[in-house]
């Protein structure tokens, strides 16, 4: 079975709805400061910073210090393992359905 990709860390980072919301917003609006991200998030600034740290660990966002503010931006290319993993199922099922057809040819009615 060819499901080598291990996107566990990525899934963990994205398993939290607040982190997904932060990532989505950065994907949509481009670079934003922690301050701006906190405004409409419904959670405290320290909590937002912690979530951003976890997203950064997973490679989903990058940060840039400018004066007293930290600016964050999305790195959508970090989603590639997730997509690869899903696509690997296409190969898997095509292979298994070939085997199913082969089995059906060998089975009695």
């Amino acid at each position: 079975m060819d499901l080598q990709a291990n996107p566990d860390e990525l899934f963990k980072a994205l398993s939290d709805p607040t982190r997904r919301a932060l990532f989505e917003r950065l994907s949509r609006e481009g670079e934003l400061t922690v301050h701006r991200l906190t405004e409409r998030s419904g959670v405290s600034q320290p909590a937002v910073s912690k979530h951003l740290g976890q997203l950064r660990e997973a490679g989903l966002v990058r940060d840039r210090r400018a004066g007293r503010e930290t600016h964050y931006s999305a790195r959508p290319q970090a989603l590639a393992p997730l997509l690869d993993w899903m696509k690997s199922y296409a190969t898997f099922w095509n292979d298994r359905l070939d085997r199913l057809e082969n089995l059906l040819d060998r089975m009695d009615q």
Partner: protein
Amino acid sequence: MNTPEASTRTLVIERKLSHPASKVWRALTQGALMEEWLMKNDFQPVAGHRFSFRAEPNPHWNGIIECQVLAVEPNQRLSYSWGSLGLESTVTFTLTPVEGGVLLRMEQSGFRPDQEQAYQGAKYGWKRFIDGLERVVGKLT
């Protein structure tokens, strides 16, 4: 016929098989036959039954797929949940009679983390995120 159609949230593969539906159904639902084309298993064609598929483990994966039977409609439709690597999806086989055989449709959908249950009702669901994935990924190329 061979029509893979991969997207980020649903995988659909259709094949026309020159065999009667009842025979294809046996291959889909009898454990020993399933092992021949799919994987070792302890499947029972009973809704609610929990079972697992076991493949060869590799360094990244224990080879176990945890499943639960969701729907059994003899000769027509079989559906089970499919959980591995912390992601859960649903696999559904549908059989539609066609001239000279049957059309088999395999659909794997709803890729989402196992933990999603904990976020039922969450304002920002995983499904919505996955829905947005294609748009995000579209920007990559």
